[in-house]
């Protein structure tokens, strides 16, 4: 187990290094250097040269790359020129709101998805199964930004039940979290269904039935527990996609999270914030993948002993 943890940690570090390099390449390839963006297109060429030197952009690329990597390790991405504060601080200010939203959406998705998946898997091929499978395809096809707007229209403007944007009360959380959770509900439901179907065909399920347990007891007492392993893993892995989806949803509901920060930073060419935010999200995802791996190994001895 210890060996496995070390190996996974090492590969997580390699992936993180790759992610940092990718962002470096993208930012360097983008047209219009930071100096031009900061000073505007009409700036004095001398001022541009001076700022370029101060930002270290006149040095050779390998040199820039090395200093960049060192900065990344120290979590120092420089100042945000638009927000007048260290980029990392701006990101950390926004991170809790994003995590709060994504976590709430994940809880909704898991509860609803498990329920739907159990209902569908319980009677495979039955009417409920067919309804659920159509429903999940529909849920995954919803453009979240449009669903968000339609929910605002229905619940905020017509029924006047919930606030349409902003933060503060739990009521502010309802619409964004539900919107964000829809495609993930579908994913969890599909997975739970196939997992339950698979478990119900295992010999132990037959044994349990032979002992006289009802179908429902077999399902909830035996199959559900084993089905939870893949569901748990996928939910952990999908949390990254959830944060990605939050980028769009946050912009619909004016939710003050990382997503709205990134979009405004990209629009304003605030390179420091773009780098800090993108790498923070990548870091969270790498961490979650690691957790999913270890969780899986912990819960399923076959994985631990098999290919650790």
């Amino acid at each position: 187990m210890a060996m496995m943890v070390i190996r996974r940690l090492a590969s997580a570090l390699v992936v993180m290094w790759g992610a940092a390099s990718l962002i470096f390449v993208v930012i360097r390839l983008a047209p219009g250097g930071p100096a031009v963006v900061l000073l505007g297109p009409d700036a004095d060429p001398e001022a541009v040269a001076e700022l370029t030197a101060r930002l270290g952009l006149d040095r050779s690329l390998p040199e820039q790359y090395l200093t960049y990597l060192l900065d990344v390790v120290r979590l120092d991405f420089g100042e945000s020129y638009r927000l007048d504060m260290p980029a990392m601080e701006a990101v950390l200010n926004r991170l809790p709101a994003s995590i709060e939203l994504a976590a709430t959406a994940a809880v909704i998705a898991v509860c609803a998805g498990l329920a739907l998946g159990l209902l569908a898997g319980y009677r495979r091929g039955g009417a409920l199964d067919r309804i659920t499978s159509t429903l999940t395809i529909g849920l995954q096809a919803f453009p979240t930004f449009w669903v968000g707007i339609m929910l605002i229209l229905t619940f905020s403007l017509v029924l006047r039940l919930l606030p349409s944007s902003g933060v503060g009360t739990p009521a502010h959380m309802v619409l964004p979290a539900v919107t964000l959770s829809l495609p993930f509900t579908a994913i969890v439901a599909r997975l739970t269904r196939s997992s339950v179907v698979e478990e119900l065909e295992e010999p132990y399920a037959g044994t349990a039935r032979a002992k006289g347990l009802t179908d429902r007891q077999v399902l909830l007492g035996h199959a559900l527990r084993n089905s939870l392993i893949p569901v748990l893993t996928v939910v952990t892995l999908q949390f990254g996609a959830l944060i990605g989806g939050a980028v769009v949803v946050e912009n619909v509901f004016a939710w003050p999270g990382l997503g709205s920060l990134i979009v405004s930073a990209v629009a304003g060419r605030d390179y420091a914030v773009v780098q800090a935010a993108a790498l923070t999200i990548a870091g969270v995802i790498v961490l979650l993948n690691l957790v999913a791996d270890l969780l899986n190994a912990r819960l399923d001895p076959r994985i631990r002993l098999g290919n650790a």
Partner: protein
Amino acid sequence: MSGAMSEAIGLVRLRRGRPRRTALWIPLGIVSGYVLVAVLGPLLLGYDHVATPVGDRLRAPGSATANGTAWLGTDGLGRDVAAQIVYGARTSLLIATVAVTLSALVGMTVGALAGLAGGWSDVVMSRVIDVLLTFPGVLLAIVVAGLFARGLPTVVLSLSITAWTPFARVARNVTLSIKEREWVSAARLMGVPRLVILVRHVLPFVLPPIVVMATLEFALVVLAEAGLSFLGIGLPPSTPSWGQTVANGKEYLATAWWISAFPGFALFLLVVSVGLLGDQLSARLGRNSRSRTS
């Protein structure tokens, strides 16, 4: 991973009975309808996305305007919503077709080569994919599309950066299982060049799952493109697109709900139909490609 996948494939085969015909023909009909509208619609409609007939602004669906009846209403600048949907269909389908074709070609080639060669090239490919997947696809698309020059090529590129990875994975896995078969070994022993082995003996088996994957990716790319234009990133405002129209309508939600509602529904209907089509294809071609669910 591949073990779980082949198990899943077996399950799909078991669980699906004889595919029903309507389940294939209805989504196919809807998707063909979209293609027809996207290709022919702009030829029949005299619509100018840049013109702003403000005299007809915010008209309800069905009202008469200077340019005829606005069946789906007009937006805040007096532009016809129905016409924007038709032009948006063109933008959406064009971008998705190019991006998915590009991604499929790149992914298939890289994946098959890595699978066939094995060794370090396989490791490098897997690592590159791992790195790309540490960013949620939307995020990378936003960063690339937002920082590079606005326009269609940028959007296609930004969407393809992550879209090729599932193709590569599928192509690699199929290639790995094919390359141990007798006919491949026979060809190798006879001295057939590696490239010819790839094209004649491996790719024909890679193609069916790639086709299934392409339909599913198509739906995701359409959604991602709409998301980008909703955020105002990527396409210039002069190019009509569904995401942009939905975003424009948000401001007038209280008074003119139709601006956001109809283009979004058009988008939803297309994505659902493509998704159903993909499901049918995967049932028929006998391969479960839904394992990548996001």
